[in-house]
Protein backbone atom coordinates (compact mmCIF):
# COMPACT_ATOMS: atom_id res chain seq x y z
CA UNK A 1 0.00 0.00 0.00
CA UNK A 2 2.67 2.50 1.10
CA UNK A 3 5.00 1.44 -1.70
CA UNK A 4 2.15 1.76 -4.19
CA UNK A 5 1.40 5.33 -3.02
CA UNK A 6 5.12 6.11 -3.19
CA UNK A 7 5.41 4.68 -6.70
CA UNK A 8 2.42 6.65 -7.97
CA UNK A 9 3.66 9.85 -6.33
CA UNK A 10 7.08 9.44 -7.91
CA UNK A 11 5.47 8.75 -11.28
CA UNK A 12 3.32 11.88 -10.91
CA UNK A 13 6.30 14.07 -10.00
CA UNK A 14 8.32 12.59 -12.86
CA UNK A 15 5.45 13.17 -15.27
CA UNK A 16 5.01 16.79 -14.17
CA UNK A 17 8.74 17.43 -14.49
CA UNK A 18 8.81 15.83 -17.93
CA UNK A 19 5.83 17.94 -19.04
CA UNK A 20 7.48 21.13 -17.72
CA UNK A 21 10.73 20.35 -19.58
CA UNK A 22 8.76 19.54 -22.77
CA UNK A 23 6.94 22.90 -22.58
CA UNK A 24 10.11 24.85 -21.76
CA UNK A 25 12.01 23.23 -24.65
CA UNK A 26 9.13 24.01 -27.00
CA UNK A 27 9.34 27.69 -26.09
CA UNK A 28 13.13 27.61 -26.25
CA UNK A 29 12.81 26.30 -29.82
CA UNK A 30 11.37 29.71 -30.84
CA UNK A 31 14.95 30.99 -30.96
CA UNK A 32 16.19 28.57 -33.63
CA UNK A 33 12.98 28.13 -35.64
CA UNK A 34 12.94 29.20 -39.26
CA UNK A 35 9.80 30.46 -41.02
CA UNK A 36 7.87 30.23 -37.76
CA UNK A 37 5.24 32.86 -38.56
CA UNK A 38 3.76 30.83 -41.42
CA UNK A 39 3.33 27.79 -39.17
CA UNK A 40 1.85 29.91 -36.36
CA UNK A 41 -0.75 31.27 -38.81
CA UNK A 42 -1.55 27.73 -39.97
CA UNK A 43 -1.91 26.52 -36.36
CA UNK A 44 -4.08 29.54 -35.53
CA UNK A 45 -6.32 28.64 -38.47
CA UNK A 46 -6.63 25.03 -37.25
CA UNK A 47 -7.38 26.04 -33.67
CA UNK A 48 -9.45 29.11 -34.49
CA UNK A 49 -11.48 28.83 -37.64
CA UNK A 50 -12.26 25.13 -37.28
CA UNK A 51 -13.51 25.64 -33.70
CA UNK A 52 -15.61 28.66 -34.60
CA UNK A 53 -18.96 26.86 -35.15
CA UNK A 54 -18.80 24.98 -31.85
CA UNK A 55 -17.82 28.15 -29.96
CA UNK A 56 -20.72 30.07 -31.51
CA UNK A 57 -23.29 27.33 -30.85
CA UNK A 58 -22.24 26.55 -27.28
CA UNK A 59 -21.81 30.26 -26.46
CA UNK A 60 -25.29 31.08 -27.72
CA UNK A 61 -26.99 28.26 -25.80
CA UNK A 62 -25.02 29.00 -22.62
CA UNK A 63 -26.26 32.59 -22.78
CA UNK A 64 -29.82 31.49 -23.54
CA UNK A 65 -29.89 29.07 -20.58
CA UNK A 66 -28.24 31.60 -18.23
CA UNK A 67 -30.81 34.21 -19.25
CA UNK A 68 -33.67 31.80 -18.72
CA UNK A 69 -32.53 30.43 -15.36
CA UNK A 70 -31.33 33.81 -14.12
CA UNK A 71 -34.59 35.54 -15.01
CA UNK A 72 -36.74 33.02 -13.07
CA UNK A 73 -34.42 33.10 -10.02
CA UNK A 74 -34.16 36.92 -10.00
CA UNK A 75 -37.91 37.40 -10.56
CA UNK A 76 -38.56 35.64 -7.23
CA UNK A 77 -36.85 38.61 -5.54
CA UNK A 78 -38.16 41.22 -7.97
CA UNK A 79 -34.64 41.83 -9.32
CA UNK A 80 -35.08 40.99 -13.02
CA UNK A 81 -33.24 44.18 -13.87
CA UNK A 82 -30.03 42.55 -12.62
CA UNK A 83 -30.21 39.80 -15.27
CA UNK A 84 -27.54 41.52 -17.39
CA UNK A 85 -25.17 41.64 -14.40
CA UNK A 86 -25.73 37.96 -13.60
CA UNK A 87 -25.23 36.76 -17.18
CA UNK A 88 -22.23 38.99 -17.89
CA UNK A 89 -20.34 38.28 -14.66
CA UNK A 90 -20.98 34.53 -14.94
CA UNK A 91 -19.73 34.52 -18.52
CA UNK A 92 -16.79 36.89 -18.20
CA UNK A 93 -15.37 35.60 -14.94
CA UNK A 94 -16.08 31.85 -15.11
CA UNK A 95 -18.16 30.23 -17.77
CA UNK A 96 -16.64 31.97 -20.80
CA UNK A 97 -13.00 31.00 -20.27
CA UNK A 98 -13.81 27.54 -18.86
CA UNK A 99 -16.41 26.44 -21.41
CA UNK A 100 -14.50 27.91 -24.37
CA UNK A 101 -11.36 26.09 -23.18
CA UNK A 102 -13.26 22.81 -22.82
CA UNK A 103 -14.71 23.22 -26.32
CA UNK A 104 -11.26 23.95 -27.75
CA UNK A 105 -9.81 20.91 -25.95
CA UNK A 106 -12.55 18.71 -27.40
CA UNK A 107 -12.17 20.08 -30.92
CA UNK A 108 -8.59 21.29 -31.44
CA UNK A 109 -6.76 19.54 -28.57
CA UNK A 110 -7.99 16.06 -29.41
CA UNK A 111 -7.22 16.52 -33.12
CA UNK A 112 -3.75 17.77 -32.20
CA UNK A 113 -2.97 14.82 -29.91
CA UNK A 114 -4.17 12.33 -32.53
CA UNK A 115 -2.27 14.04 -35.35
CA UNK A 116 1.01 14.08 -33.42
CA UNK A 117 0.45 10.47 -32.29
CA UNK A 118 0.02 9.36 -35.90
CA UNK A 119 3.06 11.38 -36.93
CA UNK A 120 5.05 9.61 -34.22
CA UNK A 121 3.73 6.20 -35.33
CA UNK A 122 4.50 6.77 -39.00
CA UNK A 123 8.04 7.99 -38.13
CA UNK A 124 7.40 11.52 -39.41
CA UNK A 125 8.79 12.93 -36.16
CA UNK A 126 11.88 10.71 -36.43
CA UNK A 127 12.22 11.91 -40.04
CA UNK A 128 12.39 15.52 -38.81
CA UNK A 129 15.17 14.53 -36.40
CA UNK A 130 17.16 12.86 -39.18
CA UNK A 131 16.79 16.02 -41.30
CA UNK A 132 18.28 18.09 -38.50
CA UNK A 133 14.94 19.85 -37.92
CA UNK A 134 13.98 20.49 -34.28
CA UNK A 135 10.76 18.46 -34.12
CA UNK A 136 9.48 20.39 -31.09
CA UNK A 137 10.16 23.70 -32.82
CA UNK A 138 8.48 22.55 -36.02
CA UNK A 139 5.43 20.78 -34.59
CA UNK A 140 4.76 22.07 -31.06
CA UNK A 141 6.07 25.65 -30.80
CA UNK A 142 3.72 27.13 -33.44
CA UNK A 143 0.73 25.46 -31.77
CA UNK A 144 1.62 26.90 -28.36
CA UNK A 145 2.09 30.40 -29.75
CA UNK A 146 -1.18 30.13 -31.67
CA UNK A 147 -3.00 28.95 -28.51
CA UNK A 148 -1.83 32.05 -26.61
CA UNK A 149 -3.63 34.19 -29.20
CA UNK A 150 -6.56 32.01 -30.19
CA UNK A 151 -7.89 31.03 -26.74
CA UNK A 152 -8.44 34.65 -25.58
CA UNK A 153 -9.99 35.53 -28.96
CA UNK A 154 -12.33 32.54 -28.90
CA UNK A 155 -13.22 33.26 -25.27
CA UNK A 156 -14.07 36.88 -26.15
CA UNK A 157 -16.28 35.60 -28.95
CA UNK A 158 -17.90 33.03 -26.65
CA UNK A 159 -18.67 35.73 -24.06
CA UNK A 160 -20.04 38.14 -26.67
CA UNK A 161 -22.33 35.53 -28.20
CA UNK A 162 -23.33 34.38 -24.69
CA UNK A 163 -24.32 37.95 -23.75
CA UNK A 164 -26.47 38.13 -26.89
CA UNK A 165 -28.00 34.78 -25.96
CA UNK A 166 -28.83 36.10 -22.47
CA UNK A 167 -30.32 39.21 -24.01
CA UNK A 168 -32.36 37.10 -26.43
CA UNK A 169 -33.96 34.94 -23.73
CA UNK A 170 -34.34 37.82 -21.22
CA UNK A 171 -35.66 40.49 -23.56
CA UNK A 172 -37.17 38.78 -26.56
CA UNK A 173 -38.70 35.75 -24.84
CA UNK A 174 -39.37 36.95 -21.29
CA UNK A 175 -40.11 40.62 -21.83
CA UNK A 176 -37.21 42.39 -20.09
CA UNK A 177 -36.32 45.76 -21.62
CA UNK A 178 -33.13 45.41 -23.74
CA UNK A 179 -31.85 48.72 -22.40
CA UNK A 180 -32.21 47.48 -18.82
CA UNK A 181 -30.30 44.30 -19.69
CA UNK A 182 -27.40 46.02 -21.50
CA UNK A 183 -27.02 48.83 -18.96
CA UNK A 184 -26.74 46.18 -16.19
CA UNK A 185 -24.05 44.48 -18.26
CA UNK A 186 -22.16 47.75 -18.65
CA UNK A 187 -22.37 48.59 -14.94
CA UNK A 188 -21.41 45.08 -13.74
CA UNK A 189 -18.36 44.27 -15.82
CA UNK A 190 -15.18 46.11 -14.88
CA UNK A 191 -11.76 46.11 -16.51
CA UNK A 192 -10.43 43.74 -13.82
CA UNK A 193 -13.09 41.19 -14.81
CA UNK A 194 -12.04 41.36 -18.44
CA UNK A 195 -8.38 41.08 -17.41
CA UNK A 196 -9.17 37.98 -15.33
CA UNK A 197 -11.06 36.52 -18.28
CA UNK A 198 -8.10 36.94 -20.65
CA UNK A 199 -5.54 35.72 -18.09
CA UNK A 200 -7.59 32.57 -17.61
CA UNK A 201 -8.09 32.04 -21.34
CA UNK A 202 -4.39 32.42 -22.17
CA UNK A 203 -3.37 30.14 -19.26
CA UNK A 204 -5.91 27.48 -20.22
CA UNK A 205 -4.78 27.68 -23.84
CA UNK A 206 -1.13 27.27 -22.98
CA UNK A 207 -1.69 24.42 -20.50
CA UNK A 208 -4.17 22.41 -22.54
CA UNK A 209 -2.45 22.68 -25.92
CA UNK A 210 0.92 21.88 -24.27
CA UNK A 211 -0.64 18.84 -22.58
CA UNK A 212 -2.33 17.61 -25.77
CA UNK A 213 0.94 18.07 -27.70
CA UNK A 214 2.85 16.29 -24.91
CA UNK A 215 0.60 13.21 -25.03
CA UNK A 216 0.54 13.05 -28.84
CA UNK A 217 4.26 13.66 -29.23
CA UNK A 218 5.11 10.99 -26.65
CA UNK A 219 2.45 8.44 -27.67
CA UNK A 220 5.23 5.89 -28.38
CA UNK A 221 6.07 5.82 -24.67
CA UNK A 222 2.69 4.29 -23.90
CA UNK A 223 3.44 0.87 -22.39
CA UNK A 224 -0.09 -0.49 -22.30
CA UNK A 225 -0.94 0.05 -25.99
CA UNK A 226 0.85 0.65 -29.26
CA UNK A 227 -0.09 1.55 -32.84
CA UNK A 228 -3.63 2.80 -33.41
CA UNK A 229 -4.67 1.83 -29.87
CA UNK A 230 -1.70 3.75 -28.51
CA UNK A 231 -2.78 6.88 -30.41
CA UNK A 232 -6.34 6.41 -29.20
CA UNK A 233 -5.19 5.99 -25.57
CA UNK A 234 -2.93 9.09 -25.81
CA UNK A 235 -5.75 11.17 -27.28
CA UNK A 236 -8.20 10.10 -24.58
CA UNK A 237 -5.65 10.81 -21.85
CA UNK A 238 -4.90 14.22 -23.40
CA UNK A 239 -8.57 15.26 -23.44
CA UNK A 240 -9.39 13.95 -19.94
CA UNK A 241 -6.30 15.44 -18.30
CA UNK A 242 -6.72 18.75 -20.15
CA UNK A 243 -10.34 19.03 -18.97
CA UNK A 244 -9.32 18.37 -15.37
CA UNK A 245 -6.44 20.81 -15.73
CA UNK A 246 -8.78 23.57 -16.95
CA UNK A 247 -11.00 23.23 -13.87
CA UNK A 248 -8.03 22.95 -11.47
CA UNK A 249 -6.28 25.96 -13.00
CA UNK A 250 -9.56 27.89 -12.90
CA UNK A 251 -9.81 27.38 -9.15
CA UNK A 252 -6.15 28.32 -8.58
CA UNK A 253 -6.31 31.48 -10.74
CA UNK A 254 -9.63 32.56 -9.25
CA UNK A 255 -8.32 32.13 -5.71
CA UNK A 256 -5.33 34.35 -6.56
CA UNK A 257 -7.21 37.02 -8.49
CA UNK A 258 -10.39 37.40 -6.43
Amino acid at each position, binding site marked *: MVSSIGRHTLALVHGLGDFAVFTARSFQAVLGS*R*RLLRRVVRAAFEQGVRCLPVILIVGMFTGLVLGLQGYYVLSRFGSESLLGALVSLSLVRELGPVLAALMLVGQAGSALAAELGI*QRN*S*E*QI*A*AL*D*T*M*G*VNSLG*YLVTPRLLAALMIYPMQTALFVTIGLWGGSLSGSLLLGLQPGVYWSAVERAVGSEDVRECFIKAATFGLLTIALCCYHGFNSHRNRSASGARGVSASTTRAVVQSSILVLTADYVITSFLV
Partner: protein
Amino acid sequence: MPADPQTPLLQVQGVYKRFGDNVVLSGVDLEVPRGSVVTVLGRSGTGKSVFLKCLAGIVHPDQGTIRFDGRALDVDEPRARAEFHRRCGFLFQSNALFDSLTALENVALPLEQTTDLSESDIRKRSLEALRQIELEQHADQYPGQLSGGMQKRLALARAIVTQPELVLFDEPTAGLDPLRRNAVFTMIAKYQRQFGFTAVIVTHDVTEALVASDRVALLDKGVMHFQGTPAEFTSSTDPVVTSFRDSAAALGATLASLRSGADIQSED
Protein backbone atom coordinates in the same frame (compact mmCIF):
# COMPACT_ATOMS: atom_id res chain seq x y z
CA MET B 1 39.05 20.26 -41.05
CA PRO B 2 38.06 17.56 -43.61
CA ALA B 3 39.47 14.13 -42.86
CA ASP B 4 41.91 12.21 -45.07
CA PRO B 5 40.03 11.01 -48.21
CA GLN B 6 41.37 7.53 -47.52
CA THR B 7 39.64 7.46 -44.12
CA PRO B 8 36.30 5.60 -44.30
CA LEU B 9 33.37 8.04 -44.22
CA LEU B 10 31.78 6.03 -41.43
CA GLN B 11 33.58 3.92 -38.81
CA VAL B 12 31.60 2.01 -36.21
CA GLN B 13 33.40 0.37 -33.31
CA GLY B 14 31.93 -1.80 -30.57
CA VAL B 15 28.38 -0.40 -30.69
CA TYR B 16 26.28 -1.93 -27.95
CA LYS B 17 22.56 -1.33 -27.42
CA ARG B 18 20.01 -2.95 -25.15
CA PHE B 19 16.33 -2.26 -24.46
CA GLY B 20 15.58 -3.51 -20.95
CA ASP B 21 16.90 -7.07 -20.79
CA ASN B 22 16.93 -7.43 -24.57
CA VAL B 23 20.47 -6.97 -25.96
CA VAL B 24 19.94 -5.86 -29.56
CA LEU B 25 23.48 -4.91 -30.58
CA SER B 26 26.44 -6.54 -28.92
CA GLY B 27 29.65 -4.83 -30.03
CA VAL B 28 28.99 -4.10 -33.71
CA ASP B 29 31.86 -2.93 -35.96
CA LEU B 30 31.52 -1.60 -39.50
CA GLU B 31 33.55 0.47 -41.96
CA VAL B 32 31.91 2.34 -44.82
CA PRO B 33 34.38 3.60 -47.47
CA ARG B 34 33.59 6.91 -49.20
CA GLY B 35 31.45 6.68 -52.31
CA SER B 36 30.57 3.02 -51.74
CA VAL B 37 27.29 1.17 -51.31
CA VAL B 38 27.39 -1.02 -48.21
CA THR B 39 24.53 -3.40 -47.49
CA VAL B 40 23.86 -4.75 -44.02
CA LEU B 41 22.00 -8.04 -44.31
CA GLY B 42 20.30 -9.95 -41.55
CA ARG B 43 17.16 -11.80 -40.58
CA SER B 44 14.15 -9.90 -39.23
CA GLY B 45 14.60 -8.93 -35.59
CA THR B 46 18.42 -9.04 -35.59
CA GLY B 47 18.75 -5.32 -34.84
CA LYS B 48 19.42 -4.01 -38.35
CA SER B 49 17.02 -1.06 -38.09
CA VAL B 50 18.23 -0.20 -34.56
CA PHE B 51 21.79 -0.26 -35.88
CA LEU B 52 20.85 2.09 -38.74
CA LYS B 53 19.08 4.43 -36.32
CA CYS B 54 22.25 4.48 -34.20
CA LEU B 55 24.16 5.52 -37.34
CA ALA B 56 21.56 8.24 -37.99
CA GLY B 57 21.88 9.56 -34.44
CA ILE B 58 18.22 9.00 -33.51
CA VAL B 59 18.98 6.05 -31.21
CA HIS B 60 21.83 6.47 -28.73
CA PRO B 61 24.16 3.47 -28.37
CA ASP B 62 24.88 2.43 -24.78
CA GLN B 63 28.55 1.84 -25.63
CA GLY B 64 30.88 2.16 -28.60
CA THR B 65 31.86 4.92 -30.98
CA ILE B 66 30.58 6.03 -34.36
CA ARG B 67 33.01 8.18 -36.32
CA PHE B 68 31.72 10.22 -39.25
CA ASP B 69 34.37 11.73 -41.53
CA GLY B 70 37.03 10.94 -38.94
CA ARG B 71 35.25 12.62 -36.02
CA ALA B 72 33.29 10.96 -33.22
CA LEU B 73 29.57 11.55 -33.60
CA ASP B 74 28.22 13.53 -30.66
CA VAL B 75 24.47 13.85 -31.09
CA ASP B 76 24.05 15.47 -27.67
CA GLU B 77 25.87 18.59 -28.86
CA PRO B 78 23.34 20.62 -30.92
CA ARG B 79 25.84 22.13 -33.37
CA ALA B 80 27.57 18.80 -34.06
CA ARG B 81 24.18 17.12 -34.46
CA ALA B 82 22.96 19.78 -36.91
CA GLU B 83 26.22 19.50 -38.90
CA PHE B 84 25.90 15.69 -39.04
CA HIS B 85 22.25 15.75 -40.12
CA ARG B 86 23.08 18.29 -42.81
CA ARG B 87 25.52 15.77 -44.29
CA CYS B 88 23.41 12.64 -43.76
CA GLY B 89 20.06 11.66 -45.31
CA PHE B 90 17.76 8.88 -44.13
CA LEU B 91 15.17 6.95 -46.09
CA PHE B 92 12.67 5.27 -43.78
CA GLN B 93 11.08 1.89 -44.40
CA SER B 94 7.66 3.59 -44.19
CA ASN B 95 8.91 6.60 -46.23
CA ALA B 96 7.77 8.90 -43.34
CA LEU B 97 6.36 11.49 -45.75
CA PHE B 98 4.20 14.28 -44.36
CA ASP B 99 0.74 13.47 -45.66
CA SER B 100 -0.53 17.01 -45.08
CA LEU B 101 2.18 18.46 -47.35
CA THR B 102 2.37 18.20 -51.15
CA ALA B 103 5.25 16.39 -52.87
CA LEU B 104 6.98 19.73 -53.45
CA GLU B 105 6.49 20.85 -49.83
CA ASN B 106 7.84 17.50 -48.57
CA VAL B 107 11.02 17.90 -50.60
CA ALA B 108 11.35 21.58 -49.66
CA LEU B 109 10.95 20.90 -45.92
CA PRO B 110 14.62 20.19 -45.05
CA LEU B 111 15.76 23.17 -47.13
CA GLU B 112 13.21 25.50 -45.50
CA GLN B 113 14.09 24.41 -42.01
CA THR B 114 17.86 23.97 -42.14
CA THR B 115 19.14 26.51 -44.67
CA ASP B 116 18.94 30.25 -45.21
CA LEU B 117 18.07 29.91 -48.90
CA SER B 118 15.45 32.26 -50.33
CA GLU B 119 11.94 31.02 -51.14
CA SER B 120 12.67 31.07 -54.88
CA ASP B 121 15.94 29.12 -54.47
CA ILE B 122 14.19 26.52 -52.29
CA ARG B 123 11.47 26.11 -54.89
CA LYS B 124 14.02 25.85 -57.69
CA ARG B 125 16.10 23.22 -55.90
CA SER B 126 13.06 21.22 -54.80
CA LEU B 127 11.62 21.18 -58.33
CA GLU B 128 15.03 20.16 -59.66
CA ALA B 129 15.14 17.25 -57.16
CA LEU B 130 11.64 16.21 -58.25
CA ARG B 131 12.65 16.47 -61.91
CA GLN B 132 15.69 14.25 -61.33
CA ILE B 133 13.53 11.50 -59.89
CA GLU B 134 10.86 12.04 -62.56
CA LEU B 135 8.16 13.34 -60.23
CA GLU B 136 8.05 16.95 -61.42
CA GLN B 137 4.52 16.50 -62.80
CA HIS B 138 3.30 15.36 -59.37
CA ALA B 139 4.72 18.34 -57.43
CA ASP B 140 1.31 19.51 -56.26
CA GLN B 141 -0.04 16.09 -55.32
CA TYR B 142 -0.14 14.73 -51.79
CA PRO B 143 1.75 11.52 -50.89
CA GLY B 144 -1.55 9.67 -50.51
CA GLN B 145 -2.29 10.35 -54.20
CA LEU B 146 0.98 8.73 -55.34
CA SER B 147 1.75 5.04 -55.93
CA GLY B 148 4.05 3.11 -53.55
CA GLY B 149 7.00 3.38 -55.94
CA MET B 150 6.46 7.11 -56.42
CA GLN B 151 6.31 7.61 -52.65
CA LYS B 152 9.62 5.77 -52.33
CA ARG B 153 11.19 8.03 -54.95
CA LEU B 154 9.70 11.10 -53.27
CA ALA B 155 11.20 10.02 -49.93
CA LEU B 156 14.55 9.58 -51.68
CA ALA B 157 14.26 13.06 -53.22
CA ARG B 158 13.66 14.50 -49.74
CA ALA B 159 16.63 12.56 -48.36
CA ILE B 160 19.04 13.82 -51.03
CA VAL B 161 17.76 17.37 -51.67
CA THR B 162 20.30 18.78 -49.20
CA GLN B 163 23.03 16.93 -51.15
CA PRO B 164 24.19 14.75 -48.23
CA GLU B 165 27.42 12.76 -48.35
CA LEU B 166 25.85 9.75 -46.65
CA VAL B 167 22.36 8.29 -47.22
CA LEU B 168 20.99 5.55 -44.95
CA PHE B 169 18.28 3.25 -46.34
CA ASP B 170 16.12 1.32 -43.87
CA GLU B 171 14.62 -1.76 -45.57
CA PRO B 172 13.86 0.13 -48.80
CA THR B 173 12.21 -2.94 -50.39
CA ALA B 174 10.20 -4.26 -47.44
CA GLY B 175 6.81 -5.56 -48.52
CA LEU B 176 7.48 -5.11 -52.26
CA ASP B 177 7.16 -7.76 -54.96
CA PRO B 178 10.34 -8.93 -56.78
CA LEU B 179 9.84 -6.55 -59.72
CA ARG B 180 9.44 -3.54 -57.45
CA ARG B 181 12.41 -4.71 -55.33
CA ASN B 182 14.57 -4.71 -58.45
CA ALA B 183 13.25 -1.27 -59.38
CA VAL B 184 14.10 0.17 -55.95
CA PHE B 185 17.64 -1.24 -55.96
CA THR B 186 18.12 0.00 -59.53
CA MET B 187 16.89 3.42 -58.41
CA ILE B 188 19.34 3.49 -55.49
CA ALA B 189 22.25 2.40 -57.69
CA LYS B 190 21.30 4.94 -60.38
CA TYR B 191 20.99 7.91 -58.04
CA GLN B 192 24.04 6.86 -56.00
CA ARG B 193 26.10 7.13 -59.21
CA GLN B 194 24.33 10.32 -60.28
CA PHE B 195 24.76 12.16 -56.97
CA GLY B 196 27.87 10.38 -55.69
CA PHE B 197 26.69 9.83 -52.12
CA THR B 198 27.84 7.00 -49.86
CA ALA B 199 25.02 4.58 -49.06
CA VAL B 200 24.31 2.16 -46.25
CA ILE B 201 21.36 -0.12 -46.99
CA VAL B 202 19.73 -2.39 -44.45
CA THR B 203 17.78 -5.24 -46.02
CA HIS B 204 17.21 -8.99 -46.09
CA ASP B 205 17.03 -9.26 -49.86
CA VAL B 206 20.27 -11.14 -50.61
CA THR B 207 20.11 -11.38 -54.40
CA GLU B 208 19.43 -7.69 -55.06
CA ALA B 209 21.91 -6.58 -52.37
CA LEU B 210 24.74 -8.62 -53.89
CA VAL B 211 24.21 -6.99 -57.28
CA ALA B 212 23.79 -3.41 -56.05
CA SER B 213 26.49 -3.26 -53.33
CA ASP B 214 30.23 -2.71 -53.20
CA ARG B 215 30.44 -4.32 -49.77
CA VAL B 216 28.19 -6.61 -47.77
CA ALA B 217 27.92 -7.13 -44.01
CA LEU B 218 25.88 -9.73 -42.16
CA LEU B 219 24.36 -8.88 -38.79
CA ASP B 220 23.35 -11.91 -36.75
CA LYS B 221 22.22 -12.00 -33.11
CA GLY B 222 23.52 -8.48 -32.48
CA VAL B 223 27.01 -9.17 -33.89
CA MET B 224 28.47 -8.28 -37.29
CA HIS B 225 29.23 -11.79 -38.47
CA PHE B 226 30.70 -11.00 -41.88
CA GLN B 227 32.11 -8.04 -43.79
CA GLY B 228 33.46 -8.22 -47.33
CA THR B 229 32.77 -7.90 -51.02
CA PRO B 230 29.74 -9.58 -52.62
CA ALA B 231 32.13 -12.13 -54.18
CA GLU B 232 33.58 -12.98 -50.76
CA PHE B 233 30.07 -13.28 -49.37
CA THR B 234 29.05 -15.65 -52.18
CA SER B 235 32.09 -17.88 -51.69
CA SER B 236 32.10 -17.84 -47.86
CA THR B 237 31.81 -21.20 -46.13
CA ASP B 238 30.89 -19.67 -42.75
CA PRO B 239 27.82 -21.62 -41.52
CA VAL B 240 25.88 -18.45 -40.57
CA VAL B 241 26.61 -16.87 -43.96
CA THR B 242 25.73 -20.01 -45.90
CA SER B 243 22.56 -20.51 -43.88
CA PHE B 244 21.44 -16.94 -44.62
CA ARG B 245 22.62 -16.98 -48.25
CA ASP B 246 20.95 -20.28 -49.00
CA SER B 247 17.70 -19.46 -47.22
CA ALA B 248 15.97 -18.79 -50.56
CA ALA B 249 17.02 -22.21 -51.84
CA ALA B 250 15.85 -23.77 -48.56
CA LEU B 251 12.47 -22.11 -49.01
CA GLY B 252 12.26 -23.60 -52.52
CA ALA B 253 13.04 -27.07 -51.16
CA THR B 254 10.45 -26.67 -48.38
CA LEU B 255 7.78 -25.60 -50.86
CA ALA B 256 8.68 -28.52 -53.15
CA SER B 257 8.28 -30.97 -50.28
CA LEU B 258 5.00 -29.29 -49.30
CA ARG B 259 3.70 -29.82 -52.84
CA SER B 260 4.76 -33.47 -52.73
CA GLY B 261 2.91 -33.91 -49.43
CA ALA B 262 5.99 -34.67 -47.25
CA ASP B 263 6.21 -33.47 -43.64
CA ILE B 264 7.92 -30.14 -43.15
CA GLN B 265 10.61 -30.02 -40.48
CA SER B 266 10.80 -26.75 -38.65
CA GLU B 267 14.30 -25.25 -38.26
CA ASP B 268 13.48 -24.45 -34.67
